[in-house]
C-alpha cells in the first residue's frame, strides 16, 4: 500500500487530472451496457469522480509520515480517512435511486461548444495575464464573450471593455490597492 501511496502522492496535478479522466472513461464504459443506468450517466459519473477523489486521498494518507513521539491520538491521516469512510455509504445512498430508476434523468444538453469556447477563452485570458497584463487581457476576454453571446453591436463591443478597464483601474488598483498584473509587455514598456 505504501508503494502505491507514494506513487500517487508523487504525481503532479496534471497527472491527477489524467487519472481522473481515465477513471471517468472507465466508468462511462461500464455504464454503457446497462440500459437502465444510461439516463443517469452524468449523475453517476459525478459520483464516480467524487469517490475517486476520496479513494485517492485515502490511498495517499499511507505515505504520510508517522509521528515519532507517542501519546498523539490522531495524525494528519485520521480525518481524511474518516471522511472517505463516510463517503462510501453516502455515495451508495445517492446511487440507489438511480439504480431503482427513481431519480430524475440527466437534463438535456445545451450548447457544450459555447461553454467550451468560453472556458477556453477564460483559461487563455488568465494565461495571458502574465504577458499582456490584466487590463488588455480582460478587455479582449470581454469582447470574445460578448461575441460568443451573439452581441454584434460595435459600440457595445468597444465601449464595454474600455469602460471596464477604466473602472477596474481606478476602483481596484487605485482605490482598493489591488495589484492587478501589468504583464511583461507593459512592465517592459513602462520600464
Amino acid at each position: 500500500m505504501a508503494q502505491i501511496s507514494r506513487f500517487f502522492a508523487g504525481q503532479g496535478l496534471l497527472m491527477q487530472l489524467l487519472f481522473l479522466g481515465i477513471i471517468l472513461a472507465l466508468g462511462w464504459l461500464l455504464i454503457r451496457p446497462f440500459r437502465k443506468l444510461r439516463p443517469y450517466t452524468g449523475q453517476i459519473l459525478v459520483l464516480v469522480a467524487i469517490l475517486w477523489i476520496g479513494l485517492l486521498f485515502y490511498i495517499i494518507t499511507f505515505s504520510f509520515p508517522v509521528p515519532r513521539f507517542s501519546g498523539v491520538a490522531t495524525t494528519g491521516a485520521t480525518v481524511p480517512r474518516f471522511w472517505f469512510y463516510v463517503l462510501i455509504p453516502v455515495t451508495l445512498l445517492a446511487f440507489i435511486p438511480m439504480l431503482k430508476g427513481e431519480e430524475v434523468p440527466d437534463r438535456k444538453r445545451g450548447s457544450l461548444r459555447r461553454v467550451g469556447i468560453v472556458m477556453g477563452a477564460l483559461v487563455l485570458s488568465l494565461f495571458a495575464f502574465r504577458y499582456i497584463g490584466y487590463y488588455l487581457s480582460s478587455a479582449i476576454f470581454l469582447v470574445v464573450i460578448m461575441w460568443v453571446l451573439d452581441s454584434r453591436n460595435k459600440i457595445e463591443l468597444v465601449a464595454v471593455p474600455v469602460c471596464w478597464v477604466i473602472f477596474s483601474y481606478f476602483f481596484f488598483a487605485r482605490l482598493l490597492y489591488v495589484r492587478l498584473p501589468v504583464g511583461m509587455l507593459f512592465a517592459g514598456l513602462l520600464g
Partner: protein
Amino acid sequence: MMDILVNLGGGFGIMFTPMAILLCLLGVFAGVTFGAIPGISPSMAVALLLPMTFTLQPVLGMVLLLGAYKGANYGGSVSAVLINTPGTPSAAVTAFDGYPMTKTGRVGEAMGVSLYASVIGGIIGTVVLIAFAQPLARVALQFWPSEYFALTILGLTTVATMGGKNWQKALVAVVFGLLLNTIGMDPIAGTRRFTFGDMRLLDGLSLIPAIIGLFALGELFYNIEHYAKGEKFDKLAYKLPKLSYYLTVWKNIVRSGVLGTIIGIFPGAGGTIAAFISYDVEKRFSKHPEEFGKGSAEGVAAAESSNSASAGGALVPLLALGIPGSATAAVLLGSLLVHGLNPGPEMFVEEPELVYGMFASMFMANVFILVVGLLGANLFVRVTDLKKTLLYPLIFTFAIVGSFAVTSSMYSVVVCVVFGVIGWVFRRYDYPPAPVVLGIVLGSLAELSFRQALIIGGIESFYKRPLTLIMLAVAIAAVAAPIVKKRMQEKKLQDR
C-alpha cells in the same frame, strides 16, 4: 443596568456630532459598496479603511470601521440576491432563496426582507452585546474543543434539510467539501496533505474564490450552455413590499438574530456558520419548508438576520476579553492597539466613552444601512436591466478580479475557475453546491477541535462533558427528526 444606560447615553452624545454621523455614514456606504463586490470580505473592507483612522480620535476611528463592518455584512447580500454572486461567504446562504426570488420576479421582496432582516438582526446583536458582553464572553471561554466539535457537527446537520428532495446528493456534496478541506497543511502536526507538489496548496483552498466559482461561475456556465440568441431577462418590477409584509417573517428574524448573536460569540465560528445553522432551524420551524431553496422569504430573513447579528456577537470576546473571534475583529483589535488601547474587562471601566460610543455607533450604523439600502436598492436592482450579453461577461470579470483581490495571486483565480467548473457540473446534474461550501467552512474547525479534544481529554471528552453530549444529541436529533417524521407520515398513509 443603570450604569449601562447612563454610559450608553454618553455614547449617543458622542454619536450625535456632525463628524461622527458623517464618518458612520461614510463607513456604511463604503462597507455596502465593498461588500457587494465578490471577493471583498468585511475584514478587507475594514482593513482598507484602517489607514484613515490613524489621524482620527480612537472613538471616531472605530465609528468609521464599525460602520464599514456592518455595511459590508449587508452589502454581501445585494449581489447574492441580484446575480447569485455572494459578495461575502456568509451571503452564500442568502443566495439560496434570494436569487430564486429574483428569478421569479420577487426582487423587491428579496431585497426588502434582506435589508430589514439585516437591520433588525444587527440591532439584536448590538443589544445582546451591550447587555451581556462580559458574562457571555466568560461563558464562551469555558468551551472546550469537544464543544466546538459538537458545534460543527450541529452545523453539518444542516445539510439534512439543505438538499430537499436531493438530500442524498447533498450528503455526497458535503462530504466532498469536507474532503477538499483536508487539502493543505495538517493543523496539528503540520503534515503536507494532497498538495501534489504545489506549494500554493499548503494553505488549503481559498474559501471566497471557491464560493464565487461555485455560485457565480457555475451558474454562468450553465446559463451560457442554455443561452438562446437575443435572450433577455424578464423586466423586474422592483417595488419594496409594505411594512406589514415584514410582519410575516418577524419570528424568523428575531429567532435567527438571537441564534446568530450566540454563534457569533464563539471565536472562530462566525457569520457563515451562523447563517447556515439559522437557515436550517428556520426551515424546520417553517410551515412551508418545501419553499426553502426555491425562493422563501423566511430563508432570506434567517440568513441575513443571523449574519448581521453575528457581527455583534463577534465583538463580545473582543471587547470583553481582548480576543478577536473573527478576521474582522482582528482588524478592529489592530486599530485599537494602534491608538494604544488594550481591549479587555478594564476597557469598560477605563474607557467607557470609547466602548459605549462604539455601541451607539453600531445602532446608528444599522439606521444608515436602512437608509442606504432603501435609497440604493432602486439603483442596485438596475443591474438586472442589463442585457445578458453585457451582464454575463461583466460577472465573469468581476468574479475574476474579486478572486484575485483575495490573495493578490493567480492561485485564487485558478481556484475560482476550477470551482466554477465543479459548480457547472453540479448544476447540470442536480447536485446542490451549497453543501460543498458548508463542508469547506466547517471542515477546518471540525478537524482542529476533534483532534484537540482527543489530545486533551481522549475519547471521554466527547461523552463526559454534559454540554458536548447535549449538543451532539441535538445534532443526532436534527438528522433523525425529519426521517422519523417522514416514516410516521408514510405509515399513517398506509394505515388509511
